[in-house]
C-alpha cells in the first residue's frame, strides 16, 4: 500500500496514459482522437518530470543555501517534447479542418462510408 501511495505520481502517469490511448483508439470523432493523443503525450511529460525530481531537491537554480537540486535535463527535454507535441496537434487540427472541408464531417465512420461509395 505504501508503495502505491509513495509512487502516486507514477500512477497518475499510468492512468493518463491509458485514458489517452483508449480515447485515441475508441473515439470516432477526429478531434476527440487528437484530445486523446494529447492526454497520452502529457502523461509522458509528467513521467519525465517525475524522473527528474530529486528527493528534497529544489528547483535547479543556483541560490544560497540550497544543496540539492532537481535534475534540470528532463525539464529541458520535455520543453522540446512539448514543442513537438504542439506542432503535432496544430498539424492534426489543420488536417481535420481540411477533412471537414472535403467530406463535410469529422466522424470517422461517415468518412469511411463516403470513400467506400466512390
Amino acid at each position, binding site marked *: 500500500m505504501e508503495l502505491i501511495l509513495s509512487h502516486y505520481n507514477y500512477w497518475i502517469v499510468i492512468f493518463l496514459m491509458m485514458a489517452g*490511448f483508449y480515447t*485515441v483508439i475508441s473515439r470516432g470523432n*477526429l478531434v476527440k*482522437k487528437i484530445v486523446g*493523443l494529447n492526454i*497520452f*503525450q502529457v502523461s*509522458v511529460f509528467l*513521467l*519525465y518530470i517525475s*524522473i527528474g525530481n530529486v528527493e528534497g531537491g529544489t528547483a535547479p537554480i543556483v541560490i544560497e543555501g540550497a544543496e540539492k537540486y532537481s535534475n534540470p*535535463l*528532463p525539464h529541458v*527535454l520535455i520543453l*522540446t*517534447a512539448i514543442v*513537438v507535441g504542439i*506542432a*503535432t496537434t496544430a*498539424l*492534426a487540427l489543420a*488536417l*481535420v479542418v*481540411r*477533412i471537414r472541408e*472535403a*467530406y463535410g464531417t469529422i466522424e470517422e465512420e461517415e*468518412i469511411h462510408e463516403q*470513400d467506400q461509395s466512390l
Partner: protein
Amino acid sequence: MIDQHVSLLLVVIPLLAAPFVAVLPGRHLAWLATQIITAICFALAIYQLLQVLQGGIISYELGGWAPPWGIEYRIDAANALLAVIIAGIAAITAPYSLASVQREIPQHQHSLFYASFLLCITGLLGISLTGDIFNLFVFLEISSLSSYALISMGKQRQALTAAYQYLIMGTIGATFFLIGVGLLYAQTGTLNMADLAARLPEVIQLRTVHTAFGFILVGVALKLALFPLHLWLPNAYTFAPSVVTIFLAATATKVAVYVMLRLNLTIFSSDFVLKTPANEIFLTLGIIGIIVASATAIIQKDAKRLLAYSSVAQIGYMIIGLGFASIAGLTATLVHIFNHAIMKAALFMAIGAIFYRIGSSRLDDLTGLGRQMPWTFGALIIGGLSLIGVPGTAGFISKWYLVIAALEQDNWLATIAILGGSLLAVIYVWKLVEVLYFKVATSERQDVREAPLLLLVPTWVIALSNIYFGFDTTWTVGVAQTAIKMLGMS
C-alpha cells in the same frame, strides 16, 4: 574548415534553406533552390562516406560541447551509407519533381511543398547522423511531421485521411519511443548512444531496462511499418503526391530500419538482445509479413497500393536479416536497405510518370499504356525484375546474402519465406506488366504519349543503377561489411 563540419552541414543546410524556400515566389525558384540544395547534400554525403571509409568513425561535437553532455554526431560506415541513400534519392527526385509537382499540386502550394520536402530531408538526415537518442526523437518528429504535411498534399481527398491516420499512428509510435528513452535515462542518466551502451551493462538486469527496450521497439516498429503495424502505409503511399511516395518509399522506412539496427547493435548490446525474444519476434513477424503482404499485393487494384504492400513485404526481408543477428544477416539488411531504395524509387517513378499523363494509378486505367509509354514501361520492368531478385539486378544481391544468412542458421522457414516472397513478387510484378501491355487501352487513352524527358531521365538513371549495383557491389556489400566491422560485430 568545411571538412570538419560536413556532418553538421548535411543537417543544417536543408534546415536553414526550408524557410527561405517557403517564401520564394514564382514557379521555378523554389524548385531550383531545392534542386541545388539536394545536390549539395548528396555531394557532402558522398564526401562524408569517403572520409569514414578512409579515416574511420567521425565524432562531431555540436557547439563544441563534449559528449556525453553535448549532442554528438557520430558517423560510422552504416549511417554514412544511409545518408548517401537519403541525399541521393532526394537529389534524383528533385529534377523529377519539377514536372510532377506542377501537375499534381496547386501552384500556390509549390513553395510550401518544397519547404516541407527539405524539412523531411533534414529530419531523415538528422536521424541517421545523430549520436544522441533524444536528438534522434526530435529528428524523427521533424521528418514525420513534414511527411504528414507532404502526404496531405495529394490530389484526392483520401490523401487527407491517409495523412491523419499516419499522424495518429506515427505520434503513438514516437510517444512510445519517448517513454522508452525516458526510462533508459532514468536508469543510466545519459542520452548519448555510446555512453548508453557503456552504462547499460551495469543495470541490464533491471526490469525497467527491459520495459524501455519494449517501448522503443514497438515505437520504431510502428515507424518502419513492420507487419502488423503497417496499416498506415498503404493509404499514405497510394494517395500522397507521386514525388512524396517515391521519396518516402525509398527512404523513410529504411531510416526506421536503421534506427532499429542501431538500437540492437550499438545501444543495447547484441548479448542483451539475444536474451530477449526480440530476434524471434523479428524473424516471425518478418516471415509472416513477407508472405501476407506479398499475397495482399497480388490482389490490389491500384498500382501504387500494390507497390506499397510490396514495400511492407520488403521491410520483412530487412527485419529478417536483423533477426538473424549474424554478420551475413546484417550485411543483407544493410545491402537491402540500399537496394530496395533504388528499386522502389525506380518503380514508383515509373508509375508516377504514368500518373503524370493520366492522373490515375488504378490498374483499370493503366491498361495498354505500356505500348504508348515504352520507355516508362522499360524502367518499370527493370525495377520489377530487381524487386523479384533476378540475377544481374541489385535485388539479386540482397536475396543472395539473405538466403546465405538463413542457411547458415539452418532456418528453413525463413529460406522458404525469402524465396517464396520472390515468387509472389513474380506474380504481382507480372500483373502490372500484363495490365500495361496485354490489355488494350481504352478509347479515350489512345493519345496518351510517352512521359516528358524531365521524368524519364531520373527514372532511367535509377533504373540503370539497379543493374549497375547488380554487378558492382563494392559500394553496397563492401560498405555494409565495413559498417558491420565498425559496429563491432565479429
